[in-house]
């Protein structure tokens, strides 16, 4: 697993071990890991797996017992820890905002430590406030006056204020309720989409890791790396029974959540046009093995008709098509498509592009092939 340092590795852990004083075993034992630049890497594992210890060794809040940690090619253990930390964003679970400083001052913390002049700090704070959609009147308040979700956003804004290349996050979304957490995660992903920081975050929540991470490092007790892979691959090919068990029973569904409709091909499905004769329409339905067909005019999806509606009509145009209860697009996950399949009368998910243009359908067989292979 220990690839040569360099390449696109922003952080390389090389044989890193930590044994705490008076402990009879390593908290982290000879861990080697390449953290890729511009990606989100999740450290996950059961309690006692050393994930937080590993994170804190990167900014030297915990000193490794042995090994090397390269940050952009240079060993962090040979750098001044204070200067090092000012170059690395850091977010903890409880945020840890300075309660005696305003939100504005909190966001400007690291720029101030770096000695930026007041004008530059103010401009940067403004920029961060806009990026994180923090209202101006919020900036003058104290952390005690904010909601949990707002504090969390300020915490991330503060970590990014000095524009560090690397950000470390210790269970950053664990302290807020699930609804706020979901929204913060979405926000975080869209901001990362733009900023492309190298982010390492610790979580105990496998769903969070799957949702946010480009790569997941799954650690076992004692800091043993069980698997290091993109979430999709880890779900598809768990390296061993430990990984399989950790990923849980919903592994298949979780994989569906990761795959987009656009990533797999669609089936043509039974399609008729308004001008199609009733006889031809029946033939199309039977060829598909069902009693319904989509009505498509040009490439615009009008709805669907049932075989029974064709009684006594000459062409499809004489029948009022019904609307599908739900559509999916290429951007939706297969999990959403599956939901559409099992809840719709036609037992398929209809795939459309912007403006109701018909693309095809997804059936249960087609989706489940994705899980099985």
């Amino acid at each position, binding site marked *: 697993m220990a690839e040569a340092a360099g390449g696109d590795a922003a952080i390389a852990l090389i044989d890193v071990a930590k044994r705490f004083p008076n402990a009879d075993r390593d908290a982290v034992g000879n861990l080697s890991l390449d953290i890729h630049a511009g990606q989100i890497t999740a450290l996950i594992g059961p309690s006692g797996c050393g994930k937080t210890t590993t994170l804190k060794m990167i*900014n030297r*809040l915990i000193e490794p017992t042995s090994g090397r940690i390269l940050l952009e090619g240079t060993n962090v253990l040979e750098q001044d820890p*204070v*200067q*090092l*930390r*000012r170059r690395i964003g*850091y977010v*903890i*679970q*409880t*945020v*840890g*905002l*300075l*309660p*005696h*400083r305003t939100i504005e001052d909190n966001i400007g*913390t*690291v720029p101030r*430590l770096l000695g930026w002049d007041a004008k530059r700090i103010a401009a940067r704070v403004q920029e961060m406030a806009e990026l994180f959609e923090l209202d101006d009147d919020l900036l003058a308040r*104290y952390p*005690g006056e904010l909601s949990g979700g707002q504090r969390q956003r300020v*915490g991330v804004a*503060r*970590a990014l204020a000095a524009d560090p290349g690397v950000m*470390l996050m210790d269970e950053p979304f664990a302290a807020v309720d699930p609804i706020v957490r979901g929204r913060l995660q979405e926000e975080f992903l869209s901001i990362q989409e733009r900023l492309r920081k190298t982010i390492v975050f610790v979580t105990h929540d496998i769903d969070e890791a799957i949702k946010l991470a480009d790569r997941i490092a799954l650690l076992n007790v004692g800091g043993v790396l069980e698997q290091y892979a993109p979430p999709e691959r880890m779900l598809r090919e768990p390296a061993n029974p430990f990984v399989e068990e950790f990923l849980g029973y919903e592994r298949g569904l979780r994989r569906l959540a990761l795959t987009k409709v656009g990533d797999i091909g669609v089936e043509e499905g039974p399609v008729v046009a308004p001008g199609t004769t009733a006889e031809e329409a029946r033939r199309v339905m039977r060829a598909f093995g069902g009693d319904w067909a989509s009505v498509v005019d040009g490439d615009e999806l009008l709805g669907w008709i049932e075989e029974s509606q064709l009684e006594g009509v000459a062409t499809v145009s004489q029948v009022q098509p019904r609307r599908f209860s739900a559509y999916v697009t290429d951007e939706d996950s297969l999990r959403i498509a599956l939901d559409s399949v099992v809840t719709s009368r036609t037992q398929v998910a209809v795939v459309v592009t912007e403006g109701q243009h018909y693309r095809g359908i997804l059936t249960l067989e087609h989706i489940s092939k994705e899980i099985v292979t």
Partner: protein
Amino acid sequence: MIAQAGGEPLIRWDWIADHLDEIAADGLQHVVLTVSAVGLALLIGLPIAIVAQRHRRLYPPVTWISGILYTIPSLAAIAFLIPITGLSLTTVVIPLTGYCLLILIRNVVAGLDGVPQDVKEAATGMGYTSRQLLWRVELPMAAPVIIAGIRIATVSTIGLATIGGLIGRGGFGQLIFEGLETDFWTPLLLGSFLSLVLALLADIGLLGIQRLTTPWARGMRVVTT
């Protein structure tokens, strides 16, 4: 008006009017005594408390020693110091400082203990040096508890300082001793009353300073020891 034996009134306002200069000088001395004692105790106690808070083993001996200082009777301390420092303000300031130490050290340690671990960790993780952490994070956050300690120390010092009247260095205490020696109620009552007023004013003033300097703590409970 209650009358003293001999038909003399309890308060002789004309005496007060005749002695305004003396009363003002006593007031000034009382303030000087208090500010010197509390200030000196803060100067000595703050570094001791900071070190004791970081090196926990030192805390028990520190409280032990300052506790012993606290129990020395003021009269004995003054009597002991007269051969060394004479009938000077110093003779009064030294024991008063000693009494403040215990209160201040305990409050500084409690204030620093009250700074949440996660705030310290986040600050360290962002690149605060340990000195910056102390001056920009820990002490400002401990300020409400420290100032609460200063209030208690100040009020009790104002009361205790009157004992200095014994050697003519007790601020309003002079008036009290004068009244006691001459069996004359007016200065006795006036000295007690003014020292009470001074204590109240100091307490309110310090509370105001605390509110102004720690706006973020509004609505938070300040716990004192």
